[in-house]
Each structure stands twice: as structure tokens, then as C-alpha cells.
């Protein structure tokens, strides 16, 4: 199989999805500007024209509503938010309209919408251009949430999101864009709600999401040299969540560390820890470890940024810590 960068996997997927289904179109503020979207949209405008590659005013609320309205009317839009931070402007449309529509109107029209939510952080960008808001969206009934960690999953999850009849928040971390991996050229889907074991192990279950899967792989290699055998799980979907995969692993290892790039309080780590306590309590041999952002806004200075974002070292430290207890 060929090896391509993550950014190219997304670009290829967009080309194939839009070419393959006349209901699919791309809309969002900045879809034609390379600096917003890191090269993921190269060639789309030339190939499909401004009718289906719709660059918009910076009106996140109305543009999100328009994508939802188009989805209700039979289209399958891909709505791009170049930074998750800007999605707060569109929360009424996402949380009140898209998430509730199918249920509130008695299961009639659904909202087959992919919201491509880009995390663009680091580089001294500070608190309003850095946020990872997966926990906030995972909290809301009626939304599905996925976070690819590899070029393969970037493609397979994006195609699965587009094919799904519901609103899906597809969260894409730009720190992954240069990462390379094997990706089939043809279209394929990674089912929503199916996690994957990235590495088998017996001592501790390490769950990592999105970019932190990369860091967790490094951490696991370091720990292996210390005689600690980590089982690494990438849930890929936060909702629906592959509970079986997670619980099976926790029951095997008896220990759990969660590494997620959002904030700690009421975050993804809190949710997965609670799940383990609810459904695998008697198997747990030690407290659960959480690796996350601290409960603080993102700073600009590099010295602060370095401490702010978790990495392989902080993941390894958390694993060692729970093994001590």
C-alpha cells in the first residue's frame, strides 16, 4: 500500500467524496485559502467550482445554519471550521438545531452533516486560536464525535462521517498533517464507534486520542525499555464510544491511563475514568491516571506552551505514577 501524508489523505478524500456524490459539497470560511486549511483543499475549487466549494463570509452562526438547512433538504454538506475556537459562534445551530432536530420532530428529517472541526494550536497563538473542544461536543446528545489519529483513519472516518445520516463532529488536529502512513487509494470507511488496539500489552491500558496517539506510541516504547508493557487503545470515535474494547482491555490489565488533548475538568479523561469505575470497578488495581491540558487557557510564550501541551514524557510519567500506587 502507498504511504502518504495525513494532509494528502484529507485532500484526496474530499476530492473523492465530492466527485462521487452530487449531494456532497464543501462550505466554510476559508475553504479556498491555503493558510486556513493547511493544503487540505488544494485543487477543489478548480475542479468543482464555487457552487460546490463555497467560501463564505465569517458568519459562523449563519453558515453553520445554512449547512444544516441544506442537509435537511437532502444534501450532505461538509462544513469546515478552520479553528474549533470559532465554533462557539455557531453553538446555537450545532447544539440547539442540528443535535435536536431528528429527535424533536419525531424522527422525520435527520441532519446528515459533517462538521470538520480543525484544531490549530501551538506557535504562540494564545487562548483563542488553540482550543480542543471535543468534550463539549461529546456531551451533547444527537452529535457524533470522531478524532482520527492516522492518515488511514483521517480518510476512513471522514468518509464514514459523510455517509452517516446524523451530524458528526470530525475533529482534525493540524499537528498530524505531516504524519505519514499507509492509505488505500480507493474509498473505504472506518466505522464510527469502533476503536482500535494500537499495541497489545498486559500491564496498563493507555487510551489516547487524536494527536496524543502519536505521543502515546513514543511513551509506550520508552516504558517498554523499563519493563512496562502498555496496551494502547485509540478509540477513534468519542461518540459512539467503543465501550467493549475499552472495558475488555481494562479488565485484562486492571489499570487505566487516559491521554486526551482537552482540558481536565469534565473532560474525556473524566468520562472514560467514570466508565471504568462504573463497569469494571472490581478489576481496577490502582487509581486511574489522566493526562490532559491543565485547567487554564492556552498561553502564547513557548516556555509556557511547552508545559501546557501533554507529550510522551507526561504520558509516561502518568503511567509510572499509577504503577507505583
Amino acid at each position, binding site marked *: 500500500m502507498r504511504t502518504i501524508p495525513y494532509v494528502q489523505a484529507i485532500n484526496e478524500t474530499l476530492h473523492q467524496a465530492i466527485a462521487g456524490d452530487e449531494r456532497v*459539497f464543501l462550505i466554510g470560511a476559508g475553504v479556498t485559502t491555503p493558510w486556513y486549511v493547511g493544503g487540505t483543499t488544494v485543487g477543489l475549487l478548480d475542479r468543482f467550482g464555487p*457552487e*460546490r466549494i*463555497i467560501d*463564505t*463570509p465569517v*458568519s459562523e*452562526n*449563519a*453558515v*453553520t*445554519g*445554512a*449547512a*444544516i*438547512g*441544506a*442537509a*435537511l*433538504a*437532502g*444534501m*450532505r454538506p461538509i462544513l469546515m471550521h478552520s479553528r474549533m475556537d470559532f465554533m462557539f459562534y455557531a453553538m*446555537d*445551530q450545532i447544539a*440547539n*438545531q442540528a443535535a435536536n*432536530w*431528528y*429527535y*424533536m*420532530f*419525531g*424522527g*422525520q*428529517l*435527520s441532519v*446528515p452533516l459533517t462538521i470538520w472541526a480543525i484544531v490549530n494550536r501551538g506557535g504562540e497563538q494564545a487562548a483563542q486560536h488553540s482550543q480542543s473542544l471535543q468534550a463539549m461536543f461529546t456531551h451533547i*446528545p*444527537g452529535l*457524533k464525535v470522531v478524532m482520527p489519529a492516522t492518515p488511514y483513519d483521517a480518510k476512513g472516518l471522514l468518509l464514514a462521517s459523510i*455517509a*452517516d*445520516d*446524523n451530524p458528526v463532529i470530525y475533529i482534525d488536529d493540524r499537528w498530524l498533517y505531516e504524519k505519514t502512513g499507509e492509505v488505500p487509494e480507493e474509498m473505504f470507511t472506518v466505522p464510527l464507534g469502533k476503536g482500535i488496539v494500537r499495541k497489545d500489552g498486559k500491564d496498563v491500558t493507555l487510551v489516547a486520542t487524536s494527536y496524543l496517539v502519536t505521543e502515546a506510541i513514543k511513551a509506550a516504547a520508552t516504558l517498554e525499555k523499563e519493563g512496562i508493557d502498555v496496551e494502547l487503545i485509540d478509540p477513534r470515535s468519542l461518540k459512539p464510544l467503543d465501550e467493549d474494547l475499552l472495558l475488555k482491555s481494562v479488565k485484562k490489565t486492571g489499570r487505566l491511563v487516559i491521554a486526551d488533548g482537552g482540558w481536565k475538568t469534565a473532560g474525556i479523561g473524566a468520562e472514560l475514568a467514570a466508565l471504568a469505575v462504573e463497569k469494571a470497578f472490581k478489576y481496577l488495581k490502582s487509581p486511574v491516571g489522566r493526562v490532559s491540558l491543565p485547567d487554564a487557557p492556552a498561553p502564547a510564550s513557548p516556555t509556557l506552551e511547552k508545559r501546557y501541551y501533554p507529550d510522551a514524557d507526561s504520558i509516561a510519567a502518568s503511567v509510572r505514577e499509577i504503577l507505583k500506587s
Partner: protein
Amino acid sequence: MVNNTSPEGLRKLYTTMLTIRRLEERLGELVEQREIQCPTHLYIGQEAVAAGVCANLKPTDWVFSNHRNHGHYIAKGGDLKALVAECYVKSTGASRGRGGSMHPAQPEMGLPGSPAILSGSLPLAVGAALAFRLQGKDSVAVVFFGDGATNEGVFYESLNLASLKKLPVVFICENNLYATHMPVGACLANTELYRKAAAFCIPGLRIDGNNVVEVYKESGKAIAAARRGRGPTLLECMTYRWRGHVGPSTDVDRGLRSQAELDAWMARCPVDAAERLLKEKGGLTDAEKAAIEENIAAEIEAAVTFARRSPYPDDKELLTDVFKEGKCR
């Protein structure tokens, strides 16, 4: 579509308006009797707007409504029994008891749903219009909203986007002079809402929303223009709701407005005006009027009986339809 200024057309408009009036009066009674308990926003006094606008629409055109939606739902051809059953939050309701009075939907009649948060529906209509164009359809999306909704930022975003992309959407503002409890003068720096259209280079028009013929003609022009690809229009229909923001009371008792103001607007009753016109131009006789009233009363009572006899949703259904199952249609 018939020409609604013909005697036959006038009769249809009048019947629609009277149906809405009698339905809302009945629902008001049922709320007072606590048979209907969900928040119910009555449309009495505004009937000419829904009837006049929707008479220009085909079933394939879409109407996005709001919390005060019964008039739009009826005028667009929605099923009366399903609406009343939804007010009773029964399993036979238009949204299977999930939405209540604020949220009936009947997509096959061009009623995709009615959000109940001010202005939330505007961009949805813009998006439906975008879909219609991408699909090569000549359908139009119409969105009804109140004066209060124009204070939301998304109102401006939606007008800009619709104008920029020249989309087939018509914005119908029902200016009933009150945003919940607050008179328009207390919450709008510029109460001439139609003038906001100029800022987005689209036609804006203020009309008498209690004159069904005027509403029919002016909205007809806007809808035809949208259908021909000439982009959106903002139509401000001046009207008045006779009841309070929610429920059957008038809000006069709560000191929110004066009896004199209400009386003045009741003297300009849109249904009576349509009736006078129909008598004059369409030869409506007292006997015919009585027959229309009788038909409407029978239809409403049949709907109420249907709703009363219908079961509530099975509690096992609580968690169904959070997501639509299965793959791509």
C-alpha cells in the same frame, strides 16, 4: 394555483384564516382547562400573514416557522389532527409527542420543522434555498419570524449570506409589536424593520399584515422573484397578536399592554376584513358562512377527539431517534 384575488381564491384565503382563528381559540380553551399543558403560543390576530404568504407556495416549497407556528402549519397544508395531537404531546402527533405545540413538522407538506429559539430558523431557510439551487429545483424557502428575532446577530448574517449568494429565500417578518413582553420601541433602535434590507442590497417592504390580499400580492411578488433566481426579499408585515406571548391570556391583566391598544387592533380584525371583502366581491351569504363555520368546527372537534383518544408515546421510545440508524439514504 388559483388566483387568490378571484372570488374562489378569496374564499380559500378566508377559510384558511377562519380555520386558524377557530383552532387557536379552541386550543386557548384547552390550555385554560389544562388539557393542553405544553407552552402554546397562539396566532390569533395574525392570520392574514400565514394565509396570504402560503397561498403562493407549492407543497415542494419549504416553510420554516417558529414557536408561534400553528398558522403557518395550517396555511401550508399541514394535517390538523396531527397538529392538535402534537399539542396534546400524543404519539399520533405531527412529531410523535416529542416536540409539543412549538415543534410540529410534516416534511412531505414542506414543513421541515419550527425551531423555537429566535432567529435560529433564518439560516436554516438560507441553507434549504442553497440546497434547492444545487439540486436544480425551482423551490423556494420561506421563513417566518417576529420583530424580536431581528435583534439576533444571525438575522444580519443570514440576510447577508442570502443576498450575497442570491438564494431563493423569502424573509417574512411578522411585526406584532411585541418581543415577548417588550414593546418594539423598547428593544429596537430602528423599529422600521423593512429598512434593514437596504443594508444588504435586497428589497425590503412594509405592508399591512392584516390585509390578506395585500399580503398575498406582495409576498407573491417576492416568492416569484426568488423562484426566478432574483434573490431574497424582506417583507415586514405589520400585525398584532391578540393574546399574550404564551397561552390564552391577553397580557393586559399583567400590565404589559393596554386594553385600549388591544381594542384598537381587534377593531382591525384580519378575519372580519377578509369576510367583508368576500361578501362584497365574492357574494358570501350568511348561510354559506354558517356552513364554513360548521365545517371548521367539525374538523377541529374531530381533531380534539382524535388527540384525546390517542395514547402517549410508549416510555420505551424515550431513547429511540436520538440518532438516525443505518447508512446513507
